């Protein structure tokens, strides 16, 4: 059985990517299973999805902790210790990252167990679909091609099945062209067998009774939402052009998260730990002095 784990953000089509890959495998005659995992969060929040592919019936369910293939749609997640997309990956795991960087560059930055495969999917999605952040087709195609056991025609059929009902024919056609483009830009990999580990017991513990303030779900920390760093939901980053900003503070008034503060000189300052990248400020700035930049690039400025 091949186990594939997808990482991305709400709104990038990560669940759909896992379904396109699932359907493509199913069309190619495999047993398949796909499954997304998300909480009660919103667009931009980290999302994980899974696809299992096997020639025989699949006796597994739920999350995949030790994937054969890891598809990372959003490289900014690599910085996120909560999401920890590399968690459970070992030398036998093939890792693919959607990035503009070279393998050497990205390996210096993050502790990959082995050299990752890289392709800039966002750029291609921008070219083909006009939307760089919709990765469903692109990421599924990267997965199918790397696995090497899925026919292009079965993959194209899967794209039609999963997107055909919701997209206009022209947009679907562009997704199909994108599929072909990415399929031919990558090569199949040999997926190494996972070493078989003997099953051992998990040491269970017996919980002792604790006082009710600890035993009941009580929150005593006032205003601890500030600890919730929604900055990791961001796919796009607003950047204020201070050479032109006239301090009208419309952005400050309009930010729905209250993450724009006013500094001593009366200038707006964005708190990037909590800015969720909704880009309302950029739309509201009368002089268009707030730029929209790709998060993975903005993070290093």
């Amino acid at each position, binding site marked *: 059985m091949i186990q594939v784990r997808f990482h991305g953000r709400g709104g990038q089509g990560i669940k759909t990517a896992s379904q396109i890959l699932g359907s493509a495998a199913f069309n190619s005659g495999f047993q398949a299973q796909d499954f997304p995992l998300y909480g009660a969060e919103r667009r931009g929040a980290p999302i994980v999805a899974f696809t299992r592919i096997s020639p025989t019936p699949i006796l597994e*369910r739920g999350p995949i902790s030790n994937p054969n293939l890891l598809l990372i749609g959003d490289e900014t997640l690599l910085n996120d210790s909560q999401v920890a997309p590399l968690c459970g990956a070992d030398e036998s795991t093939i890792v693919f990252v959607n990035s503009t960087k070279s393998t050497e560059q990205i390996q210096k930055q993050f502790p990959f167990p082995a050299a990752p495969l890289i392709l800039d999917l966002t750029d291609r999605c921008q070219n083909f679909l006009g939307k760089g952040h919709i990765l469903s087709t692109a990421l599924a195609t990267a997965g199918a091609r790397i696995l090497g056991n899925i026919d292009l025609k079965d993959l194209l059929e899967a794209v039609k099945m999963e997107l055909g009902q919701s997209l206009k024919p022209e947009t679907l056609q562009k997704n199909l062209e994108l599929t072909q483009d990415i399929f031919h830009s990558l090569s199949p990999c040999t997926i190494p067998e996972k070493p078989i580990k003997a099953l051992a017991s998990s040491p269970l513990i017996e919980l002792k009774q604790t006082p009710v303030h600890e035993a009941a779900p*009580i929150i005593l920390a006032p205003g601890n939402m500030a600890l919730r760093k929604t900055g990791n939901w961001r796919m796009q980053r607003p950047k204020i052009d201070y050479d032109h900003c006239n301090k009208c503070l419309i952005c400050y008034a309009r930010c729905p998260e209250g993450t724009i503060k006013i500094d001593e000189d009366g200038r707006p300052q964005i708190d990037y730990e909590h800015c969720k990248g909704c880009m309302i400020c950029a739309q509201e700035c009368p002089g268009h002095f707030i730029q929209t930049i790709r998060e993975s690039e903005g993070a290093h400025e």
Partner: protein
Amino acid sequence: MNKHSKMMLTGNKAAAWGVRLAQVDYVPAFPITPQTEIVETLAQWFSDGTLTGKYTNMDSEHSMFMAAGAAAATGVRVFTASSSQGILHGMEALYTIAGWRVPLVMVNVSRALATPITLEPDHNDVMSTRDCGMVQLHAETCQEVLDFILIGHRIAEHPQVALPVLVNMDGFYLSFTREPVVLPEPSEVARFLPPYKSEQPVFKASQPMARASAVFGGATYSYFKIQQDLAVRQAETVFHEVSEEFAQYFGRNYGPVENFMMDDAEFVFVMSNSFATKGKAAVLELRKQGIKAGLLKLRLIRPFPTQAIADSLLGHHKVAVIDQNLSPGMGGILFPEIVTSLYSRINRPEKFLSVIGGLGGKDILKEDFFSIVEHLRSDKSEGPLFLYNDDDLKQFKKVSHIALAEKGGSES
């Protein structure tokens, strides 16, 4: 059989397809995660004409179950669905409509109950409906969800049963998981499950009738309750008949329980619902390591298939009942039911272990099954074994730290 098409479907979509194939006449609905996809899909099919009956958005689950029961009392085929807090909110109505003795099918998508609130599954919600007087079928796969809805309508509408049938599936692990599902041919479903014609009196315009009379004096009350018990028990015989017929039509054969690698099993895990799949995988791995494990999966929960359970478990030495629910102060809810099924029989297993796991969607690991085997081997026989480890405690400590739970201690 080859004209049946196969599709990748979530548990929720499989449920919606079951309703579509059953040609249900009426669906009262109220959304709740992780069930919403079922009623959304049905709403779409009713609005585009794929389904020709009536669909109504209700103001709450309480109204929804009352509407479902009332519609069923008019002699039409009814479906509804809910989950978790919704089931609890409608609880009064569930007892009420089951007492009306009206047939309908409802799906519960299992989700753990508050407090604390969560969206992930365990079985306390469905277990809370255990004593309402409904028939309950629990599904392991998306295919079972679809098939049980078809079988469920047949059981519900059987004149000797005339009760609501609840089909259960796990939230997330089944509701949002896609896997290949065989869609039965509509014309064959129409033969297996023809349009519903009630054999009991039904509400009709201008013909007054009452279904919910008040009774004073325990003798009358008891009479109706004992009748309800007999009808639920009768559902087991009906389940066998209907299942056999289903197998003739569609080739899938469902007993009230499923035996997996049971023949020579020394260690048996008793499970229900989607985590049974994980149990099966663990059984195969344990066997590779020379441990003779087996699994008994429960499909029919009400009526409780005592005989089938005894037939499966007698002669095996060690049995662990894995409950994904908790009755605080007692333990797992199914454990005593399994023990009761075997208590008075000779050759019963020498050791029973109550195991609690999978609460609030916590995964049950393959290693956990190994731990259960170790406990079955040891001579410890105290209270329930909780599948909880150091990593779990660490995760808790992290959030409790953010919540400053420790502070309450220092100030008190």
